[in-house]
């Protein structure tokens, strides 16, 4: 190994192709979809579905292929997380809300990939690999009374031996693409619920709930500050019955190893946090490019060969925005490269997510400030990017929770030692 920042040729090509999609199917609809909150990004979904479907098919085909070409298989997938990061960064540059409407298994897919058996992967992910109609997946963890403290969730899963089914009861909120997954397509939701409240974290398991399951309904569809094109819904479970083998991982409650029941969720976060970071980076870059373009049109260039005393306040701001963006980008790049190398990345994933979310919110806010009344106007997209960027500091763990995770790791403290 050697330190390198070389993006492989094929990944660069993919990135360019994605940039084209973002320009063609996202940007032109950005304002309209923001103003008409629950309208769906039809053009984008139609353009992306065949691509994502075929990718999912290729991934599933690898699962069923005989195990001989092992080395080759490993080699080909070795930049998978890097690809995803750069793909998402490009799409979020197009539109962060529309990006979240990607017709794919989404976060639910991350969970199934992380903890599902081969049989489960084939059974549940095949719907994302076939057909003409787009399909969505979602992930349901948050509850009205359980946000960052998701181990205190109260949605229950009780096993009914008579019918060999799990029975779910409770309410999940803030589910990205929840309605798309359950009402507008033949999708699925990965639902986290407790099988034994007294066991705390160890009692928490994840279950796959498919569209059309009786007792499952969409409650509220949220109206939001930003990412308005994204569908955010609550899901109510009222004696919803699902097959016994829809549980991801083991049904055992291991009282000794406290965190085992949570392993799945945590593994999901290691993969998903860099992706949230990537989406923040996309919005941040959109803002940064836009403000530089507007400044250039007004004769203001951003130099990199002047000492501090020769820079104007705006030049200093934009240089700082650039440096912050780059720092966030590199932390994210590191977190995905480590995953691709098979190196444990929990700490780095949280660092990347925290830094990227914060930096890019700041960049978007600064852009509005620098552009003055035009920054604040809905005529341009700067104000929208500022609203869109803000969510990255909140979902997949707030800035504060991520700081806490980082602090525990660097100090080698348990949850009890650093609460």
């Amino acid at each position: 190994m050697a330190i390198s920042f070389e993006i492989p040729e094929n990944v660069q090509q993919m990135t360019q192709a994605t940039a084209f999609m973002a320009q063609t199917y996202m940007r032109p609809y950005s304002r309209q979809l923001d103003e008409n909150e629950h309208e769906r990004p039809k053009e984008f979904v139609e353009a992306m579905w065949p691509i994502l479907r075929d990718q999912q098919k290729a991934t599933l085909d690898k699962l069923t292929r005989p195990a001989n070409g092992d080395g080759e298989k490993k080699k080909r997938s070795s930049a998978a997380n890097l690809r995803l990061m750069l793909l998402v960064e490009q799409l979020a540059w197009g539109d962060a809300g529309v990006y979240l409407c990607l017709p794919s298994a989404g976060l639910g897919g991350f969970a199934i990939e992380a903890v599902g058996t081969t049989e489960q992967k084939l059974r549940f992910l095949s719907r994302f690999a076939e057909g003409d109609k787009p399909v969505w997946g979602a992930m349901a963890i948050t509850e009205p009374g359980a946000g960052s403290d998701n181990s205190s969730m109260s949605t229950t899963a009780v096993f009914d031996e008579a019918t060999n089914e799990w029975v779910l009861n409770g309410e999940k909120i803030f589910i990205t693409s929840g309605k798309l997954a359950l009402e507008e397509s033949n999708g699925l939701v990965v639902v986290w619920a407790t099988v034994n409240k007294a066991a705390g974290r160890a009692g928490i398991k994840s279950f796959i709930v498919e569209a059309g399951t009786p007792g499952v309904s969409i409650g509220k569809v949220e109206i939001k500050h930003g990412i308005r094109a994204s569908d955010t819904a609550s899901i109510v479970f009222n004696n919803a019955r699902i097959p016994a083998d829809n549980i991801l991982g083991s049904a055992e409650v291991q009282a000794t190893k406290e965190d085992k029941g949570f392993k799945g969720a945590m593994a999901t976060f290691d993969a998903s946090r860099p992706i949230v970071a990537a989406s923040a980076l996309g919005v941040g870059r959109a803002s940064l490019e836009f403000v530089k373009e507007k400044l250039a049109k007004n004769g203001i260039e951003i130099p990199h060969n002047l000492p501090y005393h020769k820079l104007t306040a705006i030049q200093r701001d934009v240089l700082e925005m650039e440096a912050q963006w780059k720092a966030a980008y590199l932390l994210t790049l590191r977190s995905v490269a480590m995953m691709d190398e098979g190196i444990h990345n929990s700490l780095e994933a949280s660092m990347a997510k925290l830094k990227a979310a914060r930096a890019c919110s700041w960049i978007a806010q600064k852009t509005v400030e620098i552009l003055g009344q035009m920054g604040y106007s809905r005529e341009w997209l700067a104000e929208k990017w500022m609203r869109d960027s803000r969510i990255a500091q909140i979902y997949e763990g707030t800035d504060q929770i991520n700081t806490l995770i980082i602090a525990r790791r660097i100090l080698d403290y348990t949850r009890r030692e650093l609460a």
Partner: protein
Amino acid sequence: MVSFTPTDEQQLLLDTIRRYAVNDMRGAAHEADEASEPAHDVVRTGWQLGLIPSAIPEELGGFGEMSALTGVLAAEELAFGDLATAMHVLTPALFAYPLVLFGTAEQRENWLPLFLEERFVPATAALLEPGIFFDPYDLSTQASSADGQICLNGAKAYVPLAENARVMLVYARNVETGSVDAYIVEKGTDGVQIEKREQMMGLRALPTYRVHFNNVVVDASARLGGAVGSDFTVLLNRSHVALAALAVGVARASYEYARDYAKQRVQFGKPIAQNQSIAFMLAEAAIEIDAARLLVWEAAWKLDQGEDAAREAYLAKQYADQMVLKVADAGVQVLGGYGFIREYPVERWLRNGRGFPTFTGMAMV
């Protein structure tokens, strides 16, 4: 392929420097700082790590492996030990590396073998100038040429090891073209006046001097790169990344010390690190150190690829300048009252860290 893992050789070098930093540099840093005197035996040991000889071309007896990336890895580790000694050991590079990059065959043959010796040979460069508004592209020191000779006039500041330097590179603005060039000036040349040592807030163990050039005449062949000259921007970029890497090292020293202290210091019946107010400061520091390091690595990697890295180097330097101040400041705060006592190293790291925005051109990879 994107990767953040150093090569085996780089890792070996890092391990060696780490041992030197912890076993030699750390033990001598406080006393050297208090006495404002270099720890000469530690400098000697540091020189024997052979960092500069490894960058000198093979045909001249070196190892021919000049790499900005290896350079920044080494610089961070050295500064983790002690900034003054790190910059002392690396000062000859201020003279040697520009010659490796841009020197004429004659300049390289004349001077580079000097740095292959086992003994530390002081050589340096003079870029900074007195006054508050320094701009490396707009130097007051002037070079004018006549009759195959060059005449230098002006004043330089913060020139490390100037008093003992066998030879130095002097950066000056060509009065006719306005371009910035470097000139080789040997010890004892007429008109070179080395003043008393500068007294600074930090970096006290590194002797630096103000130097005056009064009608200093050198042969035209003393211009770095001869008739072709050199690319000042490239040299400045390499200096930016070197300084930024040193800043990361200082910040890491302060952060690790504060982190370990916070886990041991008990107040209200528990280690202070168990409070979010302390733990979050440390988490913040950890992120910012990593962020700055990655900016440095990327800029250095680009330099090694032969790409234009001017913007990356500039941003990395700017970022690291701010980062080290913030982190070293947090280090002092975590130690509370002890942070203010000179017996503890964190206040020295704050003093040293504060200097980075000022140290333009004082290190090179």
